[in-house]
């Protein structure tokens, strides 16, 4: 088989897993979409109005406009992380869905990549909802805001891969609290979601700059508010590198866990 044919087969099989997931999702799309739209509306209105009264302008933006891009990125992170941890763990251990897939020609790498693709799709759905809400609230500047969607997908790929690394070691659902509490929450608080990071001590700023969420926000905020995009390739590179490294590690570890 040629290299190209191999890649095509890999993608086709991963896509069949993605299709399975979207089929499940479509059955419960109603409540799921309600969550996707409802959450950001509440956050933006309540925090944007309420907190915005005290904060005033941030980096030349209304607080609500500043917050919108942060909320969009956080939701990309949360959607992919949840899918890569709780849902993936359910399919791996509780329902043994993966074992069923692995009894077909599908390999572990294809299962993992299918999961990552799907989790990133969830990020995309969730950020699309936020983008619609933001536009209705008049928080998006212009058509460039549409480029937020591919960034959201990439952010989803990155955080889905990281979540699957965690899942590869999980013994129960409780295990995920370590990752959420010790990694995701501090990262969200320190990456410029709620306030610009230049108010933080230098060392903390550096810490936030080596984590992927900061780079997602650095792309999404100017795209949403019409600001100036800088270091685009650096930001994309950090997200892609984290994602690729985590995807390879997750595949290796899940293979060790299931094929033993």
């Amino acid at each position, binding site marked *: 088989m040629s290299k190209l044919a191999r890649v095509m087969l890999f993608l*086709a*099989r991963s896509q*069949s*897993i993605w*299709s*399975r997931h979207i*089929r*499940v999702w479509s*059955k419960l799309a109603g409540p799921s979409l309600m969550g996707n739209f409802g959450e950001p509306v509440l956050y933006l209105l309540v925090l944007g109005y309420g907190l915005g009264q005290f904060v005033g302008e941030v980096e030349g933006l209304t607080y609500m406009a500043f917050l919108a891009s942060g909320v969009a990125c956080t939701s990309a992170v949360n959607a992919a992380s949840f899918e890569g941890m709780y849902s993936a763990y359910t399919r791996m251990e509780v*329902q*043994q*869905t993966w*074992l*069923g*897939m*692995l*009894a*077909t*020609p*599908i*390999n572990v790498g294809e299962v993992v990549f299918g999961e990552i693709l799907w989790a990133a799709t969830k990020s995309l759905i969730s950020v699309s909802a936020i983008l619609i809400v933001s536009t209705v609230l008049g928080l998006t500047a212009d058509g460039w805001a549409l480029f937020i969607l591919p960034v959201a997908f990439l952010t989803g790929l990155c955080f889905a891969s990281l979540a699957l690394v965690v899942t590869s070691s999980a013994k129960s659902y409780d295990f995920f609290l370590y990752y959420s509490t010790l990694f995701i929450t501090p990262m969200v608080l320190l990456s410029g979601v709620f306030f610009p990071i230049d108010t933080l001590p230098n060392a903390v700023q550096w810490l936030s700059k080596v984590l992927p969420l900061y780079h997602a926000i650095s792309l999404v905020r100017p795209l949403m508010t019409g600001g100036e995009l800088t270091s685009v390739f650096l930001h994309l590179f950090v997200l892609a590198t984290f994602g690729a490294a985590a995807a390879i590690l997750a595949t290796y570890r899940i293979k060790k866990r*299931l*094929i*033993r």
Partner: protein
Amino acid sequence: MHAAASQSEIVKSTKLSKLYAGKAVVNKLDLTIDSGCFCGILGPNGAGKTTTLRMLVGHCPMDSGELSILGLPMPENASLIRESVGVVPQMDNLDADFTVEENLYVYGRFFGLSSAVLKERTKELLEFASLEDKAKCKISELSGGMRRRLTLARALINKPKLLILDEPTTGLDPQARQAIWQKLRELKKQGLTLILTTHYMEEAERLCDRVIVMDQGEIMADAAPKRLIKGEIESHVLEVHAASEALLEQLRRDGSIARFERSGDICFFYGEKLNHALEVLEDSSHDDYLFRPANLEDVFIKLTGRDLRE
């Protein structure tokens, strides 16, 4: 693609071994299964049955030895081999989010089968599994027996040449079990090669044309069930329940007793005729006994012992 070494050898292993923590779970297994065979693997828990099955589909890396399935060497062809293998796992892993019909469709897509092909096969398989009127039902609405039949149908979606079943009837009521048996016999008639593990001796005796008894990763016996009973054990068994020591002493004087075993308050006398022992029992007032032809379970116990495996 490889040319098949021999189409008649569906499974061939030489000195196949698997170690967990330095202990051999499968120990230098030499096994050849020919096309069209219905092969049962029996063994106590931990005998290495499931590990062996997992190696057959590439779900368990082998530590040494060689294995080829459908003429293709494992594990490098695992994915290609699985295109032509069906698996009925021990634990149900049907998709609870889907209907009966969707379960077959989605699973077929994993094999890369087209919607048109799957539409046709789904119809055939629902009929085969007697689930035509359940096509739109959710999995939670199915009985245990229906779920197993659906799992069986799902394993056939790719028209496999080899079907692997890991304890397919565990936990089913007798009617549901017989329904599965009937389906499996049909498949055997169609020329499919089947490998089944089970804890039910009756199941192996009725279905399989070859029975392999495994223990501690090794093959203890391997023959047709009738031949196993003939070759491995005395023809008859006398089971005496809760008898006094004095009575047992009398019974043991029967010269035709080849073997005697005790398990709790049951005594087992193995032999061809056991005339004397039967006369003694007739004359005594003790009527709690059973004289019967030996069966596969007796062979199994003889080969693997009476100790509990937990």
